[in-house]
């Protein structure tokens, strides 16, 4: 991060924003007691967001403040130890939960009381995590009664915040383990117990009855039994169960497990887009969404191309500068394609309409009969009857600009299932994930390759949280995992291939694209599915993550 004070304008420019530049601009201006016009934030490229990056951290105030006080540019350079010590930590929750279930497996009630560690003080996203946990614990099932309660406790650890699939990675473990435990005690098939309790297709929109951050949790669309059937078939669940029964090498023990989950996407309520078309046929898309390495530029250019009707190659997406883009909410909570995409779609359609209306008058033809190209607008089937863009854009000073603001108060709810097949080595505590598969319905897919990238990257992060990543502290509160030698991120050796089934059976009614965000479904139930598979392998009940080798060996009773 670099901050520079401009005494001539009495303004400060900060490079290095990510995720939410406009939100942070507002916070910084408030803290400085300045007008927002005196503060400019510029986003820089980052390799990923991961959930913890980009919130308003203490240095986001201190560095601009130092630059203003000294009148000199001030840079913030953080080494890995400082980063691991001070970046938002997450996922420390302790749940006490119960479910009531009939002998035939029908769910009657669910109660949960949990503690959430928010660290030494409450940062910007300190309450986001437990709020998501308590409101989304019910998952994809019908519960005649649910009561959730939590206390967020302050401790002497690093403050808490979001980490990909925040609050849900935790509660998916809680709920999906509870379901497996219930099935085992009742002697029922865990998959069938899930099936008979899934919310039916006819029940959508389905009001869970909880609130997240003031938004009612109303599942917008879904066909949960259909996805289950498709996934069982596509991933050959019967074959996985047969594999489980075959003898494993040496002392290895085999287990299989699934985790069904509902994700959430959006909102932060609104997003901004502006499309500018010049005489040469170049299109510039200004968006309030930002890039955290997820490929949002590609997706928004695709949306613009298909709704404006000009070639993808002519479209440039610009983002992340609070001076050239008047407003924006950024990229978090799997929202950029949903809200940013819908705004770009709205602006693209409006621009096209304006252009074709003007051309229709010139050409004395119906707008529906016109074709837009980078050269101009012509009549379909009669390319010589063309009015060039320069003529059409002259009244607009050579550049036609159209803005759109897409507003949506409700959350979208993609849903999915994770499947895990593992071999556990009681002699070392190692867990070998032999197969992992993700079924995910996101309403509609804009770009299949980026969709796969989200799932595989999310899965890698899920493997980290399930098997490796842990911020340990000693008794005096010293952080022990202060380098990448001790804070163990998964590498390519630890992340097996992930099989995927992406479906589009339940488009979202909340936006014209029908999309739901796809950023977190690769992570959401990795812990749940692997914990279920390990419990199955060892005949024990896993109740804690990460599954370090020592914990696995203890569970195995070796």
């Amino acid at each position, binding site marked *: 991060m670099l901050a520079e004070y401009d005494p001539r304008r009495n303004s400060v420019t900060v490079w290095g924003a990510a995720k939410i530049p406009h939100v942070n601009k507002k916070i910084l201006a408030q803290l400085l007691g300045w007008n927002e016009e005196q503060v400019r934030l510029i986003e820089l490229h980052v390799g990923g967001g991961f959930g913890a990056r980009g919130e308003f951290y203490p240095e986001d105030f201190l560095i601009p403040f130092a630059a203003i006080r000294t009148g000199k540019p001030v840079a913030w350079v953080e080494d890995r130890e400082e980063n691991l010590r001070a970046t938002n930590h997450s996922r420390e929750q302790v749940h006490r939960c119960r479910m009531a279930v009939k002998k035939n497996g029908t769910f009657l009630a669910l109660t949960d009381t949990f503690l959430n560690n928010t660290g030494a003080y409450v940062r910007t996203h300190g309450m986001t995590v437990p709020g998501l946990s308590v409101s989304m614990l019910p998952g994809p099932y019908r519960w005649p009664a649910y009561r959730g309660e939590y206390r967020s406790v302050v401790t002497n650890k690093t403050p808490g915040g979001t980490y990909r699939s925040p609050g849900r990675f935790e509660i998916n473990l809680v709920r999906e383990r509870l379901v497996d435990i219930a099935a085992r005690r009742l002697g029922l098939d865990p998959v069938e117990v899930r099936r008979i309790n899934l919310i039916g297709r006819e029940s959508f929109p389905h009001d869970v009855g909880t609130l997240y951050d003031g938004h009612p949790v109303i599942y917008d669309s879904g066909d949960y039994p259909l996805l289950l059937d498709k996934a069982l078939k596509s991933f050959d669940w019967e074959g996985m169960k047969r594999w489980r029964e075959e003898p494993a090498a040496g002392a290895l023990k085999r287990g299989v497990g699934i985790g069904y989950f509902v994700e959430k996407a959006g909102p932060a309520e609104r997003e901004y887009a502006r499309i500018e078309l010049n005489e040469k046929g170049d299109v510039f898309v200004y968006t309030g969404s930002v890039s955290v390495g997820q490929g949002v530029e590609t997706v928004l250019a695709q949306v613009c191309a298909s709704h404006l009707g000009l070639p993808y190659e002519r479209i440039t997406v610009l983002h992340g500068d609070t001076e050239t883009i008047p407003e924006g909410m950024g990229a978090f909570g799997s929202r950029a394609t949903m809200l940013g995409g819908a705004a770009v779609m709205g602006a693209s359609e409006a621009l096209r309409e304006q252009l074709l209306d003007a051309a229709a008058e010139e050409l004395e033809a119906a707008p529906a009969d016109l074709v837009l190209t980078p050269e101009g607008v012509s009549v379909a089937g009669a390319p010589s009857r063309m009015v060039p863009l320069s003529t059409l854009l002259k009244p607009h000073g050579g550049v036609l600009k159209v803005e759109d603001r897409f507003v949506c108060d409700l959350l979208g709810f993609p849903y999915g299932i994770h499947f895990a097949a593992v071999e556990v080595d009681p002699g070392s505590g190692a867990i070998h994930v032999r197969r992992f598969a993700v079924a995910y319905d996101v309403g509609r897919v804009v770009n299949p390759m980026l969709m796969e990238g989200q799932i595989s990257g999310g899965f890698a992060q899920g493997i980290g949280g399930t098997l490796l990543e842990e911020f340990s502290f000693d008794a005096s509160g010293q952080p022990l995992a202060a380098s990448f030698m001790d804070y163990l991120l998964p*590498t390519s050796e630890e992340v097996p291939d992930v099989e995927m089934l992406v479906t589009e059976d339940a488009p979202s009614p909340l936006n014209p694209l029908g999309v739901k965000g796809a950023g977190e479904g690769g992570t959401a139930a990795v812990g749940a599915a692997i914990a279920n598979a390990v419990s199955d392998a060892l005949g024990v009940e896993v109740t804690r993550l990460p599954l370090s*080798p020592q914990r696995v060996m203890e569970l195995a009773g070796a």
Partner: protein
Amino acid sequence: MKPALFEYDDPATVDAALDLLARYGDECKVLAGGQSLVPLMNFRLARPGRLIDINRIDSLAGIKREGRSLSIGAMTRHVDVERSEEVARGWPLLAEAIGWVGHSQIRNRGTVGGSVAHADPAAELPAAFAVLDAKFHIQSKRGARTLGWDQFFVAEFTTSLAPDELLISVEVPPIEAGTGLAFVEYARRHGDFALGGAAVMVNVARDGRCEKASIALLSAGPAPVRARNAEAMLAGRKLDEAAIGAAADEAVRDLHPTSDLHGSSEYRVKLLRTMTERGLRTAAERAAGKT
């Protein structure tokens, strides 16, 4: 993540290096492949005032037969041992052990002498040399001496090398016919420091009885640990599951490995037992394949 200030020399000959070591002694550290020393300096856990970089001294690198023994120069890179035909023919345990060292980038730069002189109790090569009863050839301006592995390794990151001494080469005795070798370890991630591991050598007679067993454990104590009692238990016995299990129990009986965030001492003892058992089993199978 940047080192403290240091002086730097890169002598071209062993004599020049020994001159510098004699002059600066414990102010300086010898820089070989730098795969352990440089990270320690970047974390400022090590702050040597001077580095003697021996990468230019070509005579220190190389693998050659000396009589029936193998001689490995201190500056020989891990990758060259891993891929050596000489090693594969006579001392395959060394290549197997090096397969567990870090990642290929680390093995391309890391050296045999560096690993030995650094004396990390979790390192692979010290345990491999312990089970093979290797000797270490050392020089200083005061003269030359040779130490057995058990005299050389003293404690965690501590050897018998005096501040003015330089490790020149490692001498590995020949492996007799009818020998099975195995190196096993477990780490949380590929290439991480071992939570526990075992280097095993067994000689099996024609009648299937074990003539001699050697077991060296890594991450088991302050230095490589030879499980002498377990070795003695196996002498003269058939290497069946009962004998191997009993020897594995014995091998870890008095071990007190250090606890850390990746595993308690108790966990590590159990893991070492598993590693000993698996190492013995594999070595016995390989010996049986040879006889």
